[in-house]
């Protein structure tokens, strides 16, 4: 779950990392009031994605009246696909120098990586590609502490000295601490600014919390907030992963790999997937019933392919759920099911008794072909 800038900055302040003063506003009136306390400000849309500046979501305002105006333009608008519900009214700061400080996880090695770049404000991936020598990295294995002296060593190599060196090292150590404490997968301060008086401030903040760790961080809310598409939100409620696509064949698969492979085979057969739906290992009769109804809600869907394995999932309950779902459909939707594994014979019997075609071999392409025959027979 990506945190909004102001949420991230609140966490930074808890770790004694300084940020410009800011106030969150949800109405133009609140924006005006905030600006009257802060002087010249920047009005920044609070959406969980980057590239806000380029998309016109970050605008300066000299006085409260302008802040009111900017906020009324931005609030309620759509920026990078997100509806703007709040803006951060933030004091304008003059940065003498812009740096980059970030933490992420190297999945392959299973370690955290601290990255520092003396030229900030730009896309770090671009800098890393074009000027890798400008990106200073430190690997931090799970459970490791980052001692101040190591952070100072890194920053010394990057050419810093004096008070700035010590201050920056402190920020790096504290950012790593909050990376660990909050189960972050990304923590980025870009730019990390140096003010004329030498103070270091986090001018922006991007944080992404590991969705699987939210049980440890109930105060951060739930991932639901981030999903814009109503079908994807409903899927979350049901407990499945659903991604809306633009094709004609709906998919329900009991695993991610199987689902992706089913998509590949549908494309090969000259059709396009209408969605990706993966149940994971928690199939129940009700979950399957609701999944069938969910996939059918997509306006473009003309057929449904259900591809299941009974390993951790109970196939008979799954088959009963498919039958329930198909019976409850308001439109006629051709369905083909392939289901193998534990209890496969019983599951096949349940489906066939309800008149649903079953593919009993391992060949998913046979299931796709059977469904395509039905679809093309209909349109002919």
């Amino acid at each position, binding site marked *: 779950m990506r945190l909004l800038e102001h949420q991230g900055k609140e966490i930074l302040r808890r770790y004694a990392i300084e940020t410009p003063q800011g106030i969150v506003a949800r109405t133009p009136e609140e924006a005006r009031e905030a600006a009257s306390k802060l002087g010249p400000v920047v009005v920044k849309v609070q959406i969980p994605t980057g590239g806000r500046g380029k998309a016109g979501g970050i605008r300066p305002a000299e006085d409260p009246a302008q802040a009111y105006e900017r906020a009324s333009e931005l609030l309620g608008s759509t920026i990078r696909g997100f509806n703007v519900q709040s803006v951060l009214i933030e004091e304008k700061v003059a940065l003498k120098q812009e740096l980059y400080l970030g933490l992420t996880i190297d999945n392959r090695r299973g370690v955290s990586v601290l990255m520092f770049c003396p030229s900030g404000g730009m896309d770090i991936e671009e800098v890393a590609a074009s000027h890798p020598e400008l990106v200073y990295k430190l690997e931090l294995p*799970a459970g490791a502490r980052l001692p101040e002296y190591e952070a100072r060593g890194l920053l010394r190599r990057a050419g810093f000295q004096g008070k700035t060196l010590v201050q920056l090292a402190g920020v790096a150590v504290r950012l790593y601490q909050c990376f660990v404490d909050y189960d972050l997968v990304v923590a980025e301060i870009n730019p990390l600014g140096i003010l004329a008086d030498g103070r270091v401030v986090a001018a922006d903040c991007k944080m992404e919390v590991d969705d699987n760790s939210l049980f440890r961080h109930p105060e951060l809310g739930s991932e639901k907030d981030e999903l814009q598409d109503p079908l994807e939100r409903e899927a979350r409620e049901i407990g499945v992963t659903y991604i809306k696509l633009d094709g004609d064949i709906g998919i329900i698969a009991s*695993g991610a*790999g*199987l689902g992706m492979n089913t998509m590949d085979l549908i*494309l090969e057969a000259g059709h396009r997937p209408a969605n990706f739906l993966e149940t994971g290992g928690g199939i129940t009769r009700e979950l399957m019933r609701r999944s069938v109804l969910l996939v059918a809600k997509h306006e473009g869907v003309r057929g449904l392919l259900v591809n299941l394995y009974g*390993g951790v999932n109970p196939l008979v309950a799954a088959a009963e759920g498919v039958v329930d779902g198909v019976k409850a459909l308001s439109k006629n939707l051709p369905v083909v099911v392939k289901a193998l*594994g534990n209890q496969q014979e019983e599951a096949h019997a349940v489906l066939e008794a309800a008149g649903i075609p079953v593919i009993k071999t*391992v*060949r998913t392409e046979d299931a796709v072909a059977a469904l395509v025959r039905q679809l093309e027979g209909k349109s002919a």
Partner: protein
Amino acid sequence: MSILLTNETRAIVQGATGRIGQVQVRWMLEYGTRIVAGVTPGQGGATVHGVPVYDNVVEAVEKEGANATVLFVPAPYTKDAVLEAIAAGIRLIVAVPEHVPVHDAMAMRRAAREAGVWLLGPNTPGIISPGIGKLGIMPGNMFRRGRIGIISRSGTLSYEVAGYLNEAGYGESTLIGIGGDPVIGPDIPDILAEFEKDPETEAVVIVGEIGGSAEEEAAPFIARMQKPVVAYIAGRSAPPGRRMGHAGAIIREGQGTVADKTRALSEAGARVAKSIAQVPCLLRDVLKA
């Protein structure tokens, strides 16, 4: 022979008394797996399908000689269960749970590697050596004993690949699910090295998927192997930047696409199938050669 899960394996089930644990204990026993104990803190003295349950792993090791474990504990307790198994001297850990926090997975991986213990997962279907046993959730009826080793990131997809191999008259020596999560215990070359040594395995099939770089980084090892490797990568049609269920299966710009992986693997001498149906054909080619 087979790898990791052999006739010497004496396994316990952590979380044996849970809803999923009980069902899976039954499937594993019916498959012929030697399950010597269950472990659930607070449930010591119970039995599950005739298997004695202990309060902790150490007791199961001392009393039943356990050397392997399969986990069916909730995601929030997975790290603790893995660290407990390592501390008790278990040598093979199969971490089935999905949705384990990634910082926990990092700690698990580090501890396992430092102790020289095999950790499969998290988010793995497990391991099956047909004819010997299975530690995990894969349906036993999808596998036949044979001479092909399979390494897979995805559970369901590996069952599918095994099905095609069986149809073509092959079977499997061992199938290993390394885990579908971004941070997992094994690196692919660790497992390839075991298959390379195993006299029963004639060839290895790698079932990969988009995202990450595990397949690419296995390339240099594959180039040095004697035994042939065939690979299949799922997810050609996945839209970039979207998570396709497995946290691991996400493509960022220019990293971990089917084309990237195909190029790296082919250059290392592996044969890369365009569809699962093609996997047995390529195997036939390389085994003839």
